[in-house]
């Protein structure tokens, strides 16, 4: 027996409120991050990820207050991503009670930020989020490129090389999202997941495309993921966290009960 494969529900937060709602949890206010986080804790989630999608920089302080409130009442690991530009942003979120901070666009603009942040707060607190899209032309070996701005802007950076570089710069974990699969519900891009998990020594969270419980298991068994992240299948009550764990355990994947 060893580490359990983590199941991580991901919530979008805009101006301090959970958006797109969470329908299955028996909670009074589905927009309240504390209620939602408490509900997922009680449902057996191994970790919670908040993605701050607030566009206005005026509202950036709001996420710090959200983290403070959640961390005061919910005692499981909390990852926060979105809008991180400087080591100071990382420190503020950690001091507010986040355990890990996700860096995405800022790492592409200035890779050194990942090194500075991990030197300061430790690798285990730094998650680099990779948004990757297939750019394979007919007849070529499969390869993927890093995109920013929600998959709209290409960077010309090869995803596997980027993953290796970020691990080398001190990332403690990678959050890998397939922009081809995100929102499609047809399952993870397993080829991409496998390419990244085999290239790095650090844990990889698979994300993007989950539509059923077998997709979660496939991410681990065929993609080599250390954790699986999903949003809609949990938020809308199609499946519970416990059902996801039972399904994975039945295929020999170690889970936490």
């Amino acid at each position, binding site marked *: 027996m*060893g580490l359990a494969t983590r199941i991580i529900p991901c919530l979008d937060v805009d101006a301090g409120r959970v958006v797109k709602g969470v329908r299955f949890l028996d909670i009074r206010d589905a927009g309240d991050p504390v209620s939602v986080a408490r509900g997922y804790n009680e449902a057996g989630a191994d970790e919670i990820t908040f993605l701050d999608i607030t566009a206005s920089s005026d509202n950036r302080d709001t996420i710090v207050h959200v983290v403070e409130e959640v*961390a005061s009442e919910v005692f499981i690991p909390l990852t926060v991503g979105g809008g991180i530009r400087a080591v100071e942003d990382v420190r503020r979120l950690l001091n507010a009670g986040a*355990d890990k901070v996700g860096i995405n666009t800022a790492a592409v603009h200035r890779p050194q930020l990942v090194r500075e942040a991990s030197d300061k707060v430790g690798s285990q607190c730094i998650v680099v989020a990779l948004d990757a899209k297939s750019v394979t032309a007919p007849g070529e070996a499969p390869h993927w490129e890093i995109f920013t701005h929600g998959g709209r802007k290409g960077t010309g950076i090869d995803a596997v090389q980027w993953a290796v570089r970020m691990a080398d710069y001190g990332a403690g974990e990678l959050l890998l999202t397939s922009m081809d699969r995100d929102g499609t519900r047809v399952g993870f891009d397993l080829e991409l997941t496998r390419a990244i998990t085999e290239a790095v*020594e650090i844990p990889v969270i698979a994300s993007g495309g989950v539509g059923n419980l077998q997709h979660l298991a496939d991410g681990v068994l065929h993609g080599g993921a250390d954790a699986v992240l999903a949003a809609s299948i949990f938020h809308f009550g199609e499946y519970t966290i416990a059902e996801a764990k039972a399904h994975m355990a039945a295929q020999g994947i170690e889970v*936490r009960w």
Partner: protein
Amino acid sequence: MQRIAVIDYGMGNLRSVSKAIEHVADDAEVVVSADASVIESADRVVCPGQGAAADCMAALHSSGLAQTVIDIAGTRPFLGICMGYQVLLTASDENDGVQCLDIIPGHVVRFADPLMDAGARLKVPHMGWNEVRQARPHALWRKIEDCARFYFAHSYFCVPDQSSVVTGRCHYGLEIAVSIAAPNLFACQFHPEKSARDGLQLLRNFSRWDGQDR
């Protein structure tokens, strides 16, 4: 009303720790403090910590709190968490070698690279929920089942010189001593403040612990 001090030496997530203790110890006033006199007058002391060993030790020394920890460890119930466990040992290999507080003889070392287990490569950091085997009975294990899972996030681990101090072990490529105890001292590599029900139970146990090493 008892007072529990959480040592603030400028490193790490103090809020989660203090809130978790408040959550389980309603008979306690929890104070986060960098003031040696406040820490010395508390009934219980918690030393958390996060970040690199060199920074943590530098912060402990520059704040003057290194001596405070040395003075009070063993004089009243003391709980070290994560880096707050590692700094209690003699020295750490992190950052090309760092002298620690040497309260518990032993060393802090990095996981092997690559770290292998039964032919499979394990990821480093050791990140997530792993089973903790209770190496010996202890008041802080009260109402916690053997092999309960706790949350870990670390790349370095403690190797105490004497196995008699070890209270908890975990398997991750090799056996690691994830918790230790001595009179009035308990320290753990995992994060009880992030380990849901069982972690909160450990903190509740700490808030009631008489300090005896059993």
